[in-house]
């Protein structure tokens, strides 16, 4: 029998709030109060996050100037360099106990990529990997970024898939520390006439399904975080 995957669509929420939520859920996953693997799906308000591998040169603009443009700047524990999250980008935070899957970091990264590649194929976008550059690429452009943190084989952070964001945000930084990288979005690759809402929901459904398949989990939609067994009083 396939184990369940609890999928929660958090809607649009600030980065720091969801970071706290992730950390709480990971503790619950570690001590068993959260019985199932989880996939949190969220759209953030604009934020630049600096991973453990952030190089000085990836941030040509001081943090204050980025904040002045209405984005938050947060330093976090995930791997990788600087990136941006914001409206139009589907961010996924899988909280998986890898001991029940495979205790193998590279396997986890590659399977995460596979889930996104399969999800994009479901949207008729042919995407692939770029050896040595974690993430998902299509026609030489980067459509999804990945950065994770693993503690006692429970995962935190995850992926950011550009559905239809304002890509000019990425011009303010050197995304992932890769010079000359061109970011793209599903909207740009598809050139479709769908409404924003239609494309968003189609992407969310396809990615969720592909994610379940890649990790051999049966996705179950939960209506809200409140449905999670552990979650105490939600912050704010």
């Amino acid at each position, binding site marked *: 029998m396939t184990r369940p995957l609890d999928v929660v669509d958090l809607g649009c929420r600030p980065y720091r709030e969801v970071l706290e939520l992730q950390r709480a859920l990971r503790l619950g996953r570690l001590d068993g109060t959260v019985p199932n693997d989880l996939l949190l799906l969220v759209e953030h308000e604009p934020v630049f996050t600096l*991973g*453990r*591998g952030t190089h000085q040169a990836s941030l040509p603009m001081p943090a204050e100037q980025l904040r002045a443009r209405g984005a938050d700047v947060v330093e976090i*524990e*995930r*791997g*990788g360099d600087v990136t941006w999250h914001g409206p139009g980008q589907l961010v996924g935070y899988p909280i998986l106990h890898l*001991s029940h899957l495979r*205790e*193998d*970091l*590279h*396997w*986890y*990264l*590659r399977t995460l990529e596979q889930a996104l590649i399969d999800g994009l194929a479901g949207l008729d976008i*042919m995407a*692939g*990997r*770029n*050896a040595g550059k*974690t*993430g998902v*690429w*299509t*026609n*030489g452009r980067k459509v999804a970024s*990945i*950065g*994770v*943190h*693993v*503690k*006692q084989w429970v995962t935190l952070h995850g992926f950011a898939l550009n559905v239809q964001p304002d890509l000019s945000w990425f011009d303010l930084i050197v995304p992932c520390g890769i010079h000359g990288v061109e970011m793209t979005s599903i909207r740009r690759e598809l050139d479709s006439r769908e409404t924003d809402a239609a494309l968003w929901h189609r992407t969310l459904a396809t990615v969720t399904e592909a994610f379940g398949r890649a990790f051999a989990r049966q996705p179950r939609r939960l209506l809200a975080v409140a449905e999670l067994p552990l979650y105490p009083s939600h912050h704010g």
Partner: protein
Amino acid sequence: MATKVVMEALSPTMEEGRLVEWKKNEGDAVAVGDVLAEVETDKAVMELVARAAGTLIKQSVAAGSTVPVAATVAWIGSAGEAVPGGGTAAGGPAAGVDAAAAQPAAPPAPAAATPPTPQQPAPAAVELPAVPPSAPAGRIKASPLARRIAAETGIDLGGVSGSGPEGRIIKRDLDQLATVGPGEPRPPERAPRQRAEGGAAYADVTLTPMRKTIAKRLVQSIGPIPTFYLTAEADMERASDAREALVARDESGKFSFNDFIILAAATALHQHPWVNAWWMEDKVRQWHEVHIGVAVAVDEGLITPVIRNADQKSLREIAAEVRELAGRARERKLKPEEYTGATFSISNLGMFGIDEFTAVINPPEAAILAIGRIEPKPVVVDGEVRVRRRMRITMSCDHRVVDGATGAAFLKTLVEMLEYPLALVW
């Protein structure tokens, strides 16, 4: 007696890790399970956890350094204790690996890839030579890595004595089984009798990502795809003459037979949309564009760079593009879009002296051509036996897309184009 802390393999394919940040300073007390440092590999950060208790007496590498798997990064001992072999770890038993740690460009330790030779310390998680193995009572203690190796190789952990903390079975103990066998005492340090490859009965080679992809793709292919094969023989006399004449006339116009076959196939595919197609589970996509994947052998595998819109290109353009892409394929410098998206593929083993063979379909493509060598053969022409240069072509077809007659019709067109090269410009 101090204990080494080594860069652990957080994945079998991990060769090195970057020590991002120390969480314990020299002189700090350390308990088993404490987080010593954070390690980054690829885009993942994970914690390096203490496997022994005591005091962190030495950090052998600075935060920010990239260190090969199994290299010593720190020592745990009792407060005030010196690192074995002198004040710094560099002079101690770990000198070899520490030197490697100082040079990230040095070839990384082949974790889990080869059985250890006596001169080379096994890439064990933690080495605790001074701790006597305590007998496991009932439950077998083993590291996750050792459990996985045991499960994969069928070793019964019950018969293995562990040399890790508290008699825990670690990878090194299993590595030794490969040469020693269960139950036997460990041999003293002496040079083994010389045999090829250091005396091991076999060598386990870690799968490269490319090897895994090939396996996955080919299993996908030969398993669920109902494949059938069609073979035809083409007379290559005219093509050979034409090629010789072109090359004799202009050295820069050099092209291979394979370039010519790509052009002929691309032109023929244009007339046979059922063969220039993808099987997409719920539909068949007939391509109007013709993108030909050309199998190129590279070290440890193969890759199929794609000649896009091959039906729109001249022989000269195809020849130049194939040469350029194949060169970069061998250097592993192709971008994903340069080896994905083919609508049809061609594999040619003629240069290896193969008469004929069958190729495995690259899903979702519906067919692939396997080209044998061009060989002078006696054939009957106009009632007389003549020697002609002939070439055998075998097409593998996905029967869900291509039927026998459809495939045969395409092959007929292709053979005509090969036999009458002028048809290509007609």
